[in-house]
């Protein structure tokens, strides 16, 4: 059923080099030529069973997948977002691809990963600046390459504190009761089309559990890398912060330059208990495609967290610069009284990229609060949409929301859109929403230039100033990376 491919074909290299020279703006666009095991293209029940078997999964996990798959088949692909794409051919993707490690050959399960990382894969992560072998790094990293997690660092150190930080596949094996307790509770398998697909074919992802009263001393992070052409990545991440705990979790992504679309449909579930706090930061830099956004990543993601207990807090921060199409609404269900939800987002689109992103803040508990700060930047011929919902249910006495959506247009071929939905069912709630649209003023540019600053620098300075409120929420190194990404992504968009 599976087939081992060797990708080191000269012709392909040539093609890739050609593509790369067309895509100077995307520096993560190299391809790794490790030996990989890739399923044949196609999706049916046998494939779902095979994925499960490959990962040696218990029956309950297989049942979850099959149930989701059955449901997915009954759904229609959604096209309501502002993003326009032609229906995808789900049979034209491969649903499992993993680097074959030299240590254990074909029959490699998840257990043996630690010992043998394919040197090519290790090199790839090193080139991306992901510290999978650096003992002195101050973050713990789970590195995911196509369908599987290839390395998780610092786990012993974290284990001493009772923190579980491992790949999702391992968690299924090692902590089945925890996974079973939380899987699908925040994002049910029937939530939406892509969540159903993810539930059926989930590849790998990260599992984090922070026990009661523990503050994670270091940032935890996951780095996603899609390498194989025409594979989908369907990671599933679950993060649980038990009572009074704290964690800052970071997520970064990239993919090589390909000329066909790659599909990324992730599901993230976050559960925050009483008095706990989770900061979830993402820098998304998937390959956006060439000048016409041919061949970029289709990034259809469901991220949702629940503030289950009193005084809990969940904060989403994202810098989105990549992908041909992004469709993503990290949300907070504010169930516990006094719980707090935050969403800070910078989304930049250039060329023909399309981003439709925002958040949902569902207020259920008393005195719940939410803040939404969204900065959309459109350049080139792109479309950038904020779509968000603030819902105050009748029980949410004294709820408060503040929303600010600012858009900036760079050039006159792009679009910036704001679609907020505000539903208030409690009179004691207080909701404020503001949105503005602007561009970089001629007078601002001239002022900078008069002080000797080049136009390109002036633009990147003004743009970063525009995004500042969001970047200040990102961990330091991440903020820097995000600023650089903005500069790179904007290159050639002006003048």
């Amino acid at each position, binding site marked *: 059923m599976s087939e081992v491919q060797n990708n080191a074909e000269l012709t392909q290299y040539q093609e890739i080099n050609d593509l790369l020279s067309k895509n100077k703006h995307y520096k993560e666009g190299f391809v790794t030529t490790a030996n990989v095991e890739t399923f044949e293209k196609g999706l049916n029940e046998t494939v779902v069973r095979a994925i499960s078997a490959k990962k040696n999964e218990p029956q309950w996990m297989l049942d979850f997948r099959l149930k989701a798959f059955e449901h997915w088949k009954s759904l229609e692909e959604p*096209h*309501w977002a502002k993003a*326009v*794409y*032609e*229906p*995808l*051919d789900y049979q034209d993707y491969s649903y499992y691809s993993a680097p074959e490690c030299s240590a254990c050959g074909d029959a490699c399960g998840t257990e043996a990963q630690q010992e043998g990382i394919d040197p090519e894969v290790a090199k790839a992560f090193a080139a991306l600046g992901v510290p999978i072998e650096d003992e002195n790094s101050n973050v713990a990293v789970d590195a995911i390459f196509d369908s599987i997690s290839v390395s998780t660092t610092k786990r012993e150190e974290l284990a001493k504190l009772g923190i579980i930080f491992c790949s999702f596949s391992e968690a299924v094996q090692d902590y089945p009761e925890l996974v079973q307790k939380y899987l699908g509770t925040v994002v049910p398998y029937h939530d939406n089309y892509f969540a159903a697909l993810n539930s059926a074919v989930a590849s790998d992802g990260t599992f984090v559990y922070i026990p009661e009263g523990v503050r994670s001393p270091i940032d935890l992070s996951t780095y996603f890398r899609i390498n194989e052409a025409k594979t989908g990545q369907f990671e599933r991440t679950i993060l649980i912060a038990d009572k009074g705990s704290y964690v800052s979790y970071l997520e970064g992504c990239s993919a090589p330059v390909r000329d*066909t*679309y790659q599909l990324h449909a992730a599901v993230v579930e976050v559960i925050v208990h009483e008095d706990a706090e989770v900061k979830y930061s993402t820098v998304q830099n998937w390959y956006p495609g060439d000048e*016409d*956004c*041919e061949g970029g990543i289709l990034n259809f993601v469901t991220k949702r967290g629940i503030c289950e207990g009193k005084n809990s807090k969940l904060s989403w921060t994202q810098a989105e610069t990549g992908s*041909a*199409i992004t469709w993503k609404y990290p949300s907070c269900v504010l169930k516990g009284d006094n719980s707090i939800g935050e969403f800070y987002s910078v989304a930049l689109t250039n060329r*023909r990229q399309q981003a439709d992103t925002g958040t949902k803040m569902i207020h259920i508990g008393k005195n719940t609060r939410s803040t939404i700060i969204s900065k959309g930047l459109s350049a080139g011929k792109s479309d950038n949409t904020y779509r968000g919902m603030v819902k105050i249910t*009748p029980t949410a006495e004294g709820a408060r929301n503040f929303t600010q959506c600012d*858009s900036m*247009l*760079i*050039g*006159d*071929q*792009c*679009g*910036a*859109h*704001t*679609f*907020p*939905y*505000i*539903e*208030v*069912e*409690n*009179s*004691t*709630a*207080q*909701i*404020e*929403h*503001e*949105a*503005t*649209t*602007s*561009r970089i003023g001629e007078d601002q540019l001239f002022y900078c230039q008069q002080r000797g600053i080049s136009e390109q620098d002036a633009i990147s300075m003004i743009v970063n100033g525009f995004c500042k409120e969001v970047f200040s929420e990102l961990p330091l190194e991440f903020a820097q990376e995000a600023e650089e990404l903005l500069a790179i992504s904007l290159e050639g968009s002006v003048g």
Partner: protein
Amino acid sequence: MTTLSSSTWGNKPLAKKFAPVVKAAMEHYAQLTDDLNKITENPGLASLRETAKQQFLLQGFPTRRDEDWGYTKLTDFIQKPFRLEAGIHVTHNDIEAYLPDYPAVRIVMVDGWFSESLSDDLSGLPKGVTIESVCDVLETPELTDRVTHQEKQIEDEPFGVLNTMLLNDGYYLQVSRNVSMEMPIFVLHVQAQDHQVSNVRNRVLLEENAELTLVESFVSLNASESEFSGFTNVVTEIEVGQAARCKQVVLQALAPRSYYFNNQFIEQAENSVLNTLYAGIGGQTSRHQNHLKMNGKNIESSQNSACYAEDSQIMDSRTYTEHNEFNGVSRQLHKYVLSGQAVGVFDGMIKVAQAAQKTDGQMDNKNLLLSDSAQMDTKPKLEIYADDVKCSHGSATGQINRDQIFYLQARGIRKPQAIRMITEAFLLEPLETVSQPAIRDWLAGALSQKLNG
């Protein structure tokens, strides 16, 4: 290989399945079309109605799953099929109370039919001002397109389709080039019979540099009968020519169980000014929609609404504003005061086309919830394709500001009165754009009376 293109998706006609009640209602209205068509002598009109009917039978009524109808429930409405019967006799006495207390040219429409006997004598209108009944216009088949100018757009709206199916009467109003109609034209739309459809199709045409003030008032004659229910379905096309100035005020004060749907399709030409205000206080379910296209340079527009809803009223006001040319300015302020289990809905879209550089668009929505079970749903949207624009929207929902109440109390005003004063001031703010004091006072009176009644 998948390719990106803006080829259309969605909106493909699916063979829909309808629940029995819905199906019955659909057949009922289709029958009304057939009845009308039996007696018409204008074949163009008959085929127009027939085409609309076919479309209606295919798509039915919108449901809450439709993006634009998620907040406006129609289930009650669908269960009450409304009739279309010849008008009953209404006297001057019946309508006296609803006429304005300021000088105006008065036109009366009873259950959707233009009433010549109740309207002012129109032969004395100033030169260059024409008012006719649409029914009369339609007697000349060649003139049919006078009132179906933007038909394609109209039929994008479910109630627009229904309006065309039942197209029979309304008013046609034209102000010629350089003519300023000083006196306001006041149109009283009366729901006279219970369970009756008032289907109204109007066309307002302002030629270059013309000026007009139009006031419309929607009332039910038997509002005191608590079960009285009428269904008013209006489509109005307004064309504001170059440098023309159009001021419009619409007061909707129908009986509490009545239904109101009003779609206004407005086109503005270069240098023109539009100022329209909707005041909503009546109806079980009401929905007032402006579809505004600003099609020339240097256009100004203002669209405001002031809505007060109580009990289980659903009050919906929507604007769709297209900036299509250079240097347009649009202003909007929509205010809602909600009590009881009322639901307020505001949906606004500002769309700025690529050619519309230097657009300045602003949309504000502010809502006051007076009771625990009132509900407000808001969607203020921007869709922007030009870079040199200033666009913003704001929305705020909450309770009365305590500091304000306290400030008034500290000046010796009792709390209930303080609350009334603040609420009233809140609701009346959008009226500031109405420039004629007499009209503004008349409107303010109607709103205050409702609010304090």
